[in-house]
């Protein structure tokens, strides 16, 4: 089961996700990117049903872009989170999306923020959050080591501690993780933590 977790530091937020694409007992690939860049300053890490995850996050990304086109200004992180919750809540009693989301963003006025959005559309603003089997280890490690206003180095240290814990204690531990960060300079990929590398695809 997929692990996604995130935390808020001093003027930035980090989202980490595993990168394995699993179908039953088969591991299709180990470099699947599950953290979507919604716009220049927002990250959406998602876990759950593969098709729903890809479809839903892309749907949200395009709607966030549409808002910016129509209104000339980007959505705030809180607005994007509430929009996402609205879409999940509307679909809940018709055709639910089985996607759990950690939405992180940076706003000039309010700084970094992180939102936990369940697949049944429960929304809560938090400093640290996690989904999946990895959450049992992630939340405990973060409860122990997290402090407010951590620097990027301290936060990545904590992220590495969490990844080490997941790798050593989860029986079906995902081999690789992707780390993305969002701060005043925007949302971007920070690093990969790989213990298995896929064979390179040879262009024919």
């Amino acid at each position, binding site marked *: 089961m997929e692990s996604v977790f995130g935390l808020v530091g001093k003027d930035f937020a980090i989202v980490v996700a595993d990168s394995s694409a699993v179908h039953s007992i088969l591991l299709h690939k180990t470099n699947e990117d599950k953290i979507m860049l919604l716009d220049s300053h927002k990250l959406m890490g998602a876990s759950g049903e593969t098709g729903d995850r890809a479809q839903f996050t892309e749907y949200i990304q395009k709607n966030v872009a549409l808002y910016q086109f129509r209104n000339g200004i980007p959505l705030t992180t809180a607005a994007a989170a509430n929009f996402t919750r609205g879409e999940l*809540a509307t679909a809940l009693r018709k055709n639910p999306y089985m996607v759990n989301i950690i939405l992180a963003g940076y706003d000039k006025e309010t700084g970094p923020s992180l939102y*936990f959005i369940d697949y049944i*559309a*429960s929304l*809560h603003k*938090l400093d640290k959050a996690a989904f999946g089997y990895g*959450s049992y280890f992630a939340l405990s490690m973060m409860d122990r080591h997290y402090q407010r206003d951590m620097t990027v180095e301290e936060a990545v240290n904590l992220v590495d501690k969490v990844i080490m814990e997941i790798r050593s204690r989860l029986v079906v531990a995902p081999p690789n993780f992707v780390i993305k960060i969002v701060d005043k300079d925007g949302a971007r990929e920070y690093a990969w933590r790989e213990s298995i590398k896929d064979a390179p695809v040879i262009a024919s």
Partner: protein
Amino acid sequence: MQIFEYNGSALVAMVGKNCFAIASDRRLGVQLQTIATDFQKIYKIHEKLFIGLSGLATDAQTLYQRLVFRHKLYQLREERDMKPETFASLVSAILYEKRFGPYFCQPVIAGLGDEDKPFICTMDSIGAKELAKDFVVAGTASESLYGACESMFKPDMDAEELFETISQALLSSVDRDCLSGWGGHVYVVTPTEVTERILKGRMD
């Protein structure tokens, strides 16, 4: 998996002398896992009307948004705030609309009506109102709350004593319920002021 026990909650409202108090726990959980310890379950509709929503968090958030919308519309049309009795009827109607696909919430409504007379009521998830003169309870800890309130309540308490009583009733009840707790949130409302206090109880 019981849907009403998915997130966990405890709510209580009590009547005093020309005042009322409404209190909730602060936990947001996903079954056995605690996600947040600062989750708000009591919402202000206007200065003299509060609603607490227990049960499934996503439905509580959706229902709250719908109720605020309806109340704002009422304010625009009637140019005044809704009376608590009217609001209770509105909540009941909205819940019964979804009779065969209900919101999994149990509301607790508390307000000061005409001549600042305290009003409290609760209802089940399909809108069956239960008016009471002394106290009303809801949530996963409701059975404990019934016992605690029955033994601690006396009529015509002033705001200070009411605060103490409702706090003790809440904390002792949530300590017997694993799905609610992590502190308390108490509002004491008199005709002249609203006091909001956070309680620190057993943080587990």
